[in-house]
C-alpha cells in the first residue's frame, strides 16, 4: 500500500468556522465541523498522497471578470467569498503548473447558483467560485477548453448562466428534476445559446435514484460527451446533497457512490458546493471524494447506517434514466446541426427574456439578454436587468460583456454602446466587462461616478 502516484492530490480545507448566512441557516459555522473532525482524525493530511494548501483571497478584479455585481463587487461579498474563490484559484494554478495531480477545494460558502448578474444571494450563493477560477485560468494560463460537471442535487443554474453563450466551456449538470426542487430549472431542453448550442447539458433525474443510475449517467452520457469535447481542464462542482440523508434533496446516493463517481469523472479540481446532512453525510462523502481523487482505497469509508441491499434501483426509475440519457445524447450529437429559433432574432441580436428569483434575499429580477450574432467571434452580450428588492427599491442596470476572443467589430460596438448608455441616464448602473483586454468598467448614474479595474 506504499505505492502512490508521484504527484499529490492538493487539498484546501476552508470550513469558514466564523462565517454564516444566519445562525440557524444550513450555510452556518457548524456545516464542516464534523468533516473537519473526520479528516483530522484519520490523519489524512499527514499522508504522502495529500498536500494541504492554504487559501489566498481572490481579487475584486477576478470577480469582475465573471460577475456584474450590483452596484459593486464589494457590496455583494464578504471575505469568506473571496477566500472560497481564492482557494479554487490556488489549487487550479498548482494543477496547471504541474505541481499536483488534482485537487479538492473543500470550502464554504458555495457558489454554483450565482449567475453572471448578481443583485443578491440566491441558493446560498453570492459569487461563483468555479466560474471565477475558470476565467482566471483562461486569462492567466491560456487554458482554452474547460468542462464543468455539476453533481449537486440542485441544478447549477448560476454556472449555466455564466457559460451559456461560451462555446469553449462545456457545462453538464445532473440533478433532481427541477419540478421537485430549487431552483426549478435544468430541463433537458436547456442546451445553451446560439453560439454554444449543446455546450450546456442538463440531466434532470427523478427523485429517489441511487448510485446505480448516477453512475449510469456518468458512464453513458457524461464520459462520452467529455471524450468528444476534449477539455483541457475538468472541474467538478461537487455538491453532496444527492446523499440519502440530505435534508434538502430526495436522492439516495451513498458516500461510495460519490467516490465511484469521482473515480470515473477524474476531475482536475473538485469544488465543494451544497450538502447539508452535516453529520450523516458530509464527513463520509468528503473523505470518500478525497480518497478517490488521491487514487486511494475508499472501501472502508461508509456511513454507519448504510445497508447496500436497501439501495437497489427500481426497474422503472432505471428505465426512465436510460431513456433520458439516450435522448440527451441525441441532442449532443445534433449540437452543430440545430438551427436558431427565428422568432428570437431581431436584426443582429438574438434575444432571451429571463426571470430570476433570489430566494435568500427575496429579490425579483427581469432580464432581457441580447447576444450580438457574429460570424467572427462568440459575440458581445448585452443584458438589461431590472431587480425589484421590494419596498420600492428597483435597480436598473445595463451590462455589456465582451468575450475573450472578440473580433474588433464586437469590441468597438460594445464600447460605443457603453458610452452611449452612460450618457443616456436611463440606467442606475452601466457596466462594461471587456475580457479581451481584461479591463472592467462600472458607472453609477446616481453618483455620476465611473470606476474601472485592470488585471
Amino acid at each position, binding site marked *: 500500500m506504499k505505492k502512490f502516484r508521484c504527484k499529490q492530490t492538493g487539498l484546501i480545507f476552508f470550513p469558514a468556522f466564523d462565517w454564516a448566512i444566519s445562525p*440557524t441557516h444550513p450555510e452556518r459555522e457548524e456545516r464542516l465541523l464534523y468533516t473537519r473532525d473526520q479528516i483530522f482524525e484519520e490523519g489524512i493530511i499527514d499522508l504522502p498522497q495529500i498536500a494541504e494548501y492554504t487559501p489566498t483571497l481572490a481579487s475584486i478584479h477576478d470577480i469582475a471578470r465573471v460577475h456584474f455585481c450590483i452596484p459593486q463587487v464589494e457590496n455583494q461579498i464578504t471575505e469568506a467569498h473571496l477566500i472560497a474563490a481564492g482557494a479554487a484559484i490556488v489549487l487550479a494554478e498548482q494543477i496547471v503548473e504541474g505541481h499536483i495531480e488534482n485537487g479538492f477545494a473543500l470550502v464554504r460558502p458555495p457558489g454554483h447558483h450565482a449567475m453572471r448578474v448578481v443583485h443578491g444571494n440566491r441558493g446560498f450563493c453570492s459569487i461563483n467560485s468555479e466560474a471565477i477560477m475558470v476565467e482566471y485560468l483562461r486569462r492567466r494560463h491560456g487554458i482554452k477548453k474547460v468542462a464543468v460537471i455539476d453533481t449537486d442535487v440542485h441544478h447549477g443554474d448560476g454556472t449555466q448562466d455564466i457559460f451559456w453563450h461560451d462555446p469553449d466551456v462545456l457545462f453538464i449538470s445532473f440533478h433532481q428534476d427541477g419540478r421537485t426542487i430549487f431552483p426549478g430549472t435544468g430541463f433537458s431542453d436547456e442546451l445553451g445559446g446560439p453560439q454554444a448550442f449543446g455546450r450546456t447539458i442538463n440531466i434532470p433525474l427523478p427523485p429517489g435514484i441511487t448510485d446505480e443510475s448516477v453512475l449510469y449517467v456518468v458512464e453513458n452520457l457524461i464520459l462520452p460527451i467529455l471524450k468528444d469535447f476534449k477539455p483541457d481542464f475538468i472541474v467538478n462542482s461537487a455538491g453532496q446533497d444527492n446523499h440519502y440523508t440530505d435534508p434538502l434533496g430526495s436522492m439516495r446516493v451513498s458516500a461510495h457512490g460519490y467516490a465511484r463517481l469521482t473515480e470515473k469523472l477524474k476531475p482536475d479540481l473538485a469544488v465543494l458546493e451544497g450538502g447539508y446532512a452535516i453529520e450523516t453525510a458530509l464527513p463520509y462523502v468528503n473523505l470518500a471524494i478525497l480518497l478517490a481523487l488521491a487514487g486511494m482505497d475508499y472501501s472502508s469509508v461508509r456511513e454507519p447506517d448504510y445497508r447496500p441491499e436497501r439501495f437497489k434501483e427500481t426497474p422503472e426509475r432505471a428505465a426512465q434514466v436510460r431513456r433520458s440519457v439516450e435522448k440527451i445524447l441525441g441532442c449532443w450529437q445534433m449540437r452543430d446541426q440545430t438551427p436558431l429559433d427565428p422568432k428570437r432574432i431581431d436584426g443582429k441580436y438574438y434575444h432571451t427574456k429571463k426571470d430570476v428569483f433570489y430566494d435568500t434575499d427575496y429579490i425579483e429580477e427581469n432580464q432581457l439578454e441580447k447576444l450580438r450574432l457574429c460570424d467572427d467571434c462568440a459575440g458581445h452580450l448585452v443584458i438589461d436587468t431590472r431587480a425589484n428588492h421590494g419596498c420600492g427599491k428597483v435597480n436598473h442596470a445595463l451590462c455589456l460583456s465582451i468575450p475573450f476572443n472578440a473580433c474588433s467589430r464586437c469590441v468597438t460596438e460594445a464600447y460605443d454602446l457603453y458610452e452611449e448608455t452612460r450618457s443616456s441616464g436611463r440606467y442606475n448602473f452601466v457596466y462594461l466587462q471587456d475580457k479581451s483586454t481584461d479591463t472592467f468598467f462600472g458607472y453609477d448614474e446616481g453618483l455620476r461616478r465611473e470606476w474601472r479595474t485592470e488585471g
Partner: protein
Amino acid sequence: MYVGVDVGGTFTDAVLLDRGTVRASAKVPTKEDLLESITKAIDEILKGVDSSQIRRVVFSTTMITNLIAEKKYDRVALLLIPGPGLNYRYYNFNTEAFYLSGAIDYRGREVVPLNKGEVDAALANLALKGYKKVGVVGKFSPRNTSHEKYVAGMIKEKYPDWLVEMGSQAGGQLNFPRRAETTFLTCATRESYRYFVSSVRQALAKREIKADVFILKADGGTLPLENSEEQPVETIFSGPAASTLGVQALIPPGETAVIVDIGGTTTDLALILSGQPLLSARGARVDEQLTQVRTLAVKSVPVGGDSILERVGKEIIIYSERLGPAYCMGGPLPTPTDALRVMGLTLLGDQDQAREAMNILGNPIGMNSVEVAERAIGLVVDSIAAEIGKMFLEWEQEPAYRVWEVLQKKKVRPTIVVGVGGGAAGFITRIAAKVGCAPIIPPYAPVANAIGAAVAKPTMQVSLRADTEQGYYIIQEEGYQGKIESKLFNEQKALELAREWLIRRAARYGLKVTPDDIEVTRKEVFNMIRDWTTTGRLFDITVQTPRGIVFHIGEEGGQK
C-alpha cells in the same frame, strides 16, 4: 538561584543563574553513567555556593530522542480500533499493530461495539508472541474512552504484569495515526526514562539539593520531574527547545529572530516571532512518524561544520554526510571547518592541515586555498539562508480555517540572526547579510541550552470538550468523562470548568496557578442546529498557564 542542566549526547552543560546574570557555567562530556556526568557538571557550577540557595533545577535531555533514534527500547504491540474510514493499511507504524473491530464516531457515539471474543483472541496472540507492553488506541477515542478502557481493563485483569497505555491519555487531540505513534513511544520509553529520573534524583540527593526539580518539554515548558514519568515522550526534542529558550533569554524581549545552531552534521533553525518561540503546527516528528507531542518549530538542515566537501568537475560541492572530524583536526576529508580555519574564522585545528585540505580541492582546477575556502563557506551560507527563507514561507502557508486567520496572515521577517553552536562564529555574519539581518552571537552562546533550561517556566494545559446535546464533557489530559447536569451550561461555565480543572491538575503537579494567570489558547463554540432549532452546543476549550521564560539575562532586577 536557578540551575539549568542540559544532558546532551556528547556534552552535559550546566549553568547557575543569579538575578539575571550567569554566575557559573560548565561543560563536561556525557558518560555512559549519567549520574557521574550530572554530578560532575553540578559540582563545577556549585563551587562555593550554598546548595540551599537554589530555588529550582531544570533538566533538559536528549536521552529519549537518542533512545528512539537507536531503537533501544522494549518491544511494544499496538492494539488498534480503527473503525470505518481510511483503510488502516495506509498507516505506517514503527511497531507491530493488531486490529480490533469496534467504532466510535466524531461525536463520541458508539457505532460498532467491541467484540469480546476478538479481544480475547488478540490478547492471547500477543502473549504468544511475547509482548508485555501494549498501546490500546481507538479512532475518536478522546471523544469516548469506553472502548480503550474496556480493552485496557481486560489486559489488567488477565495479564497484570503487562504495561498498558491508552491512546486517549497519551494523545488527546484529533489524529489517530499520530495518537497511535505517541502511545507507542510512551509505552516504549517509560522504563528507560525512569533510569534517567532516578539518576537525576541520586545526583541531587548526593549534593543535598532540595530545590524543586523540573524537566524541559519539547514545547519549551517544564514539568515537575516526578510527573514527567507519566509522559516521557513530552521530553523528546527538548534539546532544540533549550537552545531556543536560551537565546530568547539572551536577546532583548520582543525581537523577531532566527536562531541558527550550527553543529557538526546538522544545523537547527528555530524562530522567535515577536519574542515568542514558534510552535510547530504539527506535532514532533519522530523516526519519520508524526506524533501528538507539542514542539517548537525546529528545522534541521543536513549541513554542518563537518559536512564533506568534494570537487566534481570544476565545481566544489557539499554533501550532507559526515565521515569524521575536519581534515585540520585529523579527519579524512576537507570540510567547511577547514575553510573557516583557512579564513581565520575559527581557531580549531591546524592551520597548515586546513590549507592542505583546501588545496586538495583547489589545485586540479587552479584555485588557491583562500578561493576554495571562500567558495566552501559560500555553499554553507547559501544553503542555510535558503532554508531560512523556506521556513518563513512554510510558516506563512500554514493552513487557516477561519476568515480572520486568513486575513491576519502577514509577512513577518526577522530582524536578527542569532548564532549558537560550535560552527556559528564563522558563518553567522555572512548568513545574516544574506537574509538582510543583523548578526548576533550572544555571550554564553556555548551554554545557551543550559540557560534555556534554567529560565523555562512550568506549563500545563487542559482541554475541555463539552457536548450539551449529549450532556457530557471530557477533560482530555485526565481521560475524565463527566456529565453536564445543568441546562444552563454556556460558554462562561465551560471556561470556568476548564480553569477549575487546570488549577486542580496543576495542584496535583505541585504547581500553584491563580485563575488570572490562565490563558485561553483555543475556544471553539458551535451551535448545533437540527431542523432550524438549537439542540445543543459544542465547546472545545484549551486553557494553559502562560508560556514564556522566567527572566532575560541581563535584565534589570532579573529574577524575583
